[in-house]
């Protein structure tokens, strides 16, 4: 029997090739999105679940005046371990610096975490080589990730081999980890014992009972009560914390919640993706039902005849289930291929590092089985509805091919769905246009300086000997000054795309009440000149003016001048809170965008950073971009004379600025992709319904044609109802789109207005697409020979 079903199913699907293709492709794209969303949700829900002791792992949060944060003072962990026997063990996990690791002439620098020897007793990270129990017991030991080990040693087992750290110390490789799960909060390449940190004077200075920068994890004993332990912590604060920090409250929080406090939007992401998957499933199911019903209509006679010759309800249902099952299974197969080879890589490209997705059939089979069962349910529903509908028809009519009855009861649901689908599509189209305009606006905006013809050399080359490097650096600077192609240059810690938020509080000397929170930047000689930032008054820093150093010269921007309430600023004195130094304003720049356009230009102060030195970046303005390669060759040759670990590289500032919008570009691409999916599903939905209507009205179309209707009349007849619905969708979507568009754009301090044409375009695109979809079927209906449609009687 099943073979018979299958045979008929294949023949029927082949007969309706076009619809089968649309059905399968629409479903495949929809299901692929569902696969990715479910996978994403599953990865999120199983975040950090690889740890065997997950239920007993807690981390300590500090709460001051505001929200609690995930850091504590460094000595806390040792004190807790001493005071509270209910704690089995604990570990820090610190980032401090990324040391250079060398093996047989190959040097690498990778994200490094400093952890205690008990780290692997608290957390579970499977080892590829080595023993977790002993791996970090020795101070001079290092555990590598699979990737880093591969990078440094190739395919051998490196346990027992020695690497040189920062050119001086020998560390034994004691372990290589298996690949870290993508959904682990902790992602690192190198682990070293915290004992090494205490050798660092800078670290020792900060590791007191005041500075809150350490991450403290504890593993409770099986029978320990975290609430009771937490209740004891105020006593510890009182006994040990410095007076200024005694107001702090310590909280014990389950490690399960770590990801939620690190990423406040995480829960929203999970709910969002599950909801989106459910919504998508609902839409593709309804679309499938509609298209299947449309395809089933001409089979009323077949179903009736089957019933006449003795087919039971179940047998008819089985036939329809086989067909929809076949479609759904092919679609599912395609969707997994589409997801594996396109969606997941694209998604990963657009996502940040720690949200990477992967499909691993060994471990992800529960998710894939879930999707498979969802698909089977969809197939079941999509087969049942048309079969039941056909079986409801009067057999005597159906045998004669009379199918005047239309499934009217679903009309409202269908209409609401079309409106919903199109409203969503219009809003997304609007979002895509808005976002694109904003990106264009930001990329083309006047930044208040001249970004063209500026080369950015990365001169932070991890020198083995800073003094030797600086000496060679000075030679290089002199060469640059003599180079006729170089207009100006500056050696700086910052560029407009590598700007670090750093604030300080300043006040006019003698007026402590007028404290202003100012962005603070270490100012470099010739920075304003090289970037051609216009000066409102005064002058740039100069090494030729010894007074700059003696006077503690600062340059402020226009906003800062206004904030201090000054009309002119050169010569005015400033002081920093809790600092006796008196600064002198030597220049005022016009406001310029010291970073991208997301934020408003705020008061900014550049403090003279001392004589020209070899800093992180060398910005060089050249007379002509064509000179860049030759200049790079020269500089590269000179920098090779320095004791550098890295080699010199350069970019163009204008390119860097364009690239700095990459995350927004990615977001735009994501929105565009979602928009495309929304449009496709909306089209698939309307296509199915138009087909249904065209088939239900075949006879009427024939009569009208005989009576003189032309193709236009028929298109209007079949399509006008749908276009009205699309019109309604646009009416709903535009105001909602306007509001959400405003909200989106307000996120940017400087933004383009929402142009009227964006709304017109979004509406036109929706109407155009709907018209195209509707016309296709309407024209088919209109071109049908009326003799044939009337013969269907």
């Amino acid at each position, binding site marked *: 029997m099943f073979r018979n079903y299958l045979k008929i199913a294949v023949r029927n699907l082949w007969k309706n090739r076009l619809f089968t293709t649309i059905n399968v492709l629409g479903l495949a794209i929809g299901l692929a999105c569902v696969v990715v969303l479910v996978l994403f949700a599953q990865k999120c829900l199983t975040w950090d679940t690889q740890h065997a002791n997950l239920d007993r792992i807690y981390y300590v949060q500090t709460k001051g005046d505001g929200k609690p944060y995930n850091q504590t003072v460094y000595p806390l962990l040792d004190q807790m371990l001493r005071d509270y026997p209910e704690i089995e063990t604990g570990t820090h996990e610190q980032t401090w610096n990324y040391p250079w690791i060398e093996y047989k002439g190959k040097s690498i620098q990778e994200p490094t975490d400093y952890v205690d020897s008990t780290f692997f007793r608290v957390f579970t990270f499977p080892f590829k080589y080595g023993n977790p129990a002993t791996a970090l017991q020795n101070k001079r030991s290092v555990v590598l990730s699979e990737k880093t080990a591969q990078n440094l040693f190739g395919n051998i087992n490196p346990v027992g081999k020695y690497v040189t750290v920062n050119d001086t110390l020998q560390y034994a490789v004691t372990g290589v980890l298996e690949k870290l799960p993508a959904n682990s909060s902790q992602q690192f390449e190198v682990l070293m014992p915290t004992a090494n940190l205490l050798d660092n004077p800078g670290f020792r200075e900060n590791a007191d009972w005041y500075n809150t920068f350490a991450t403290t994890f504890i593993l409770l004993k099986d029978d320990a009560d975290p609430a009771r332990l937490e209740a004891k912590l105020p006593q510890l604060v009182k006994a040990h914390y410095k007076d200024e920090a005694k107001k702090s409250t310590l909280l014990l929080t389950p490690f399960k919640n770590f990801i939620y406090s690190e990423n406040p939007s995480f829960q929203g992401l999970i709910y969002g993706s599950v909801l989106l998957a459910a919504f998508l499933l609902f839409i593709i199911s309804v679309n499938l039902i509609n298209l299947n019903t449309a395809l089933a209509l001409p089979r009323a006679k077949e179903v009736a005849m089957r019933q006449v010759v003795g087919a039971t309800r179940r047998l008819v249902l089985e036939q329809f289930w086989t067909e929809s099952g076949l479609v759904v299974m092919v679609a599912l197969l395609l969707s997994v291929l589409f997801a594996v080879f396109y969606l997941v890589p694209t998604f990963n490209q657009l996502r940040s590092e720690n949200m990477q997705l992967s499909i691993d059939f060994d471990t992800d089979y529960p998710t894939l089985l879930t999707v498979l069962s969802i698909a089977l349910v969809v197939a079941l529903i999509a087969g049942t509805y048309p079969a039941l509908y056909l079986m409801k028809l009067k057999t005597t009519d159906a045998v004669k091919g009379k199918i*005047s009855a239309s499934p009217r009861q679903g009309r409202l649901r269908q209409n609401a769905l079309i409106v919903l689908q199109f409203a969503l599509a219009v809003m997304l189209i609007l979002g895509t246009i808005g976002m694109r305009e904003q990106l264009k606006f930001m990329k083309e905006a006047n930044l208040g300086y001249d970004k063209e013809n500026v080369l950015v050399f990365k001169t932070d080359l991890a020198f083995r000997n800073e003094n030797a490097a600086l000496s060679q650096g000075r030679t290089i600077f002199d060469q640059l000054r003599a180079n006729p192609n170089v207009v100006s240059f500056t050696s700086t810690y910052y560029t407009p795309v590598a700007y670090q938020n750093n604030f300080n509080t300043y006040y006019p000397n003698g007026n402590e009440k007028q404290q202003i929170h100012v962005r603070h930047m270490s100012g470099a000689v010739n920075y304003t000149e090289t970037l051609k930032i216009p000066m409102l008054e005064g002058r740039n820093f100069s090494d030729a003016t010894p007074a700059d150093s003696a006077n503690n010269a600062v340059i402020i921007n226009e906003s800062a001048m206004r904030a201090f309430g000054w009309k002119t600023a050169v010569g005015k004195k400033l002081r920093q809170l809790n600092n006796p130094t008196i600064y002198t304003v030597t220049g005022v720049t016009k406001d310029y965008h010291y970073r991208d356009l997301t934020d408003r230009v705020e008061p900014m102060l550049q403090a003279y950073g001392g004589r020209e030195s070899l800093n992180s970046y060398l910005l060089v303005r050249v007379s002509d971009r064509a000179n860049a390669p030759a200049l790079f060759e020269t500089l590269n040759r000179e920098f090779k004379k320095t004791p550098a670990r890295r080699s010199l590289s350069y970019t163009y500032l204008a390119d860097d600025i364009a690239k700095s919008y990459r995350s927004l570009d990615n977001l735009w691409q994501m929105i565009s992709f979602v928009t495309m999916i929304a449009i496709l599903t909306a089209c698939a939905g309307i296509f199915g319904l138009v087909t249904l209507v065209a088939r239900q009205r075949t*006879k*009427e179309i*024939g*009569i*009208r*044609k*005989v*009576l*003189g*209707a*032309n193709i236009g*009349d028929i298109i209007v007849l079949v399509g006008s109802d749908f276009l009205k619905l699309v019109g309604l969708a646009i009416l709903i979507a535009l105001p909602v789109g306007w509001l959400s568009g405003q909200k989106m754009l307000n996120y940017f301090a400087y933004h383009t207005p929402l142009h009227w044409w964006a709304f017109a375009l979004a509406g036109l695109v929706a109407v155009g697409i709907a018209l195209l979809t509707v016309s296709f079927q309407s024209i088919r209906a209109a*071109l049908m*020979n*009326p*003799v044939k449609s*009337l013969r269907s*009687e």
Partner: protein
Amino acid sequence: MIQTINLQKLFATEEVETTALNGINVEIKDGEFVAIMGPSGCGKSTLLNILGLLDNPSEGEYNFYGTPVAKMTERQRAGLRKGSIGFVFQSFNLIDELTVYENVELPLLYLKTPTGERKERVEASLERMGIMHRRNHFPQQLSGGQQQRVAIARAVVAKPRMILADEPTGNLDSKNGEEVMKVLSELNDEGTTIIMVTHSPYDAGFAHRIVNLFDGKVVTENFHV
């Protein structure tokens, strides 16, 4: 006058080719009432569809009031058909979603007849068929005879030169069938050309001439006086 010369119609599928009409020569004068008879599958309806400009012949010529139409596109045929031919079908072919009035009005809408004139003509047509009192009903609320009268009202509302009727009494009882035939005769008396496909010798008796088809060919022509 309409005239066909050596009209042929082939229906071809991948495997078989069927000759529905094979060298049909007929001439129908203005104001004639012609019945086409023959066994099932002899090509009656195919001939009627071609005469009614719903379909093209595969070969041969067809002069429709002096215009050669055999090679016309569907669009051109539709233009010529509009207003000059009325159709009456065995199964009435009324549109279920439209009222009696709206069904009859349809051909005039497609002819872009002005509203006032349209109303006048629809009402006159309904009056004439005696179904004015049913103008706001839907087809399924009417008896078969009444439905066929609506169909005839719709066929004549545009004042066509010719009415093509495909077994107009096939779905009616004898009383209603008789009435429909009387209406067709009256229309013919007023000058409308009528071509009717029928199985019923009784109905054929209303015609001036009977064309008998067999296997796609005209076998005999009988004239009534």
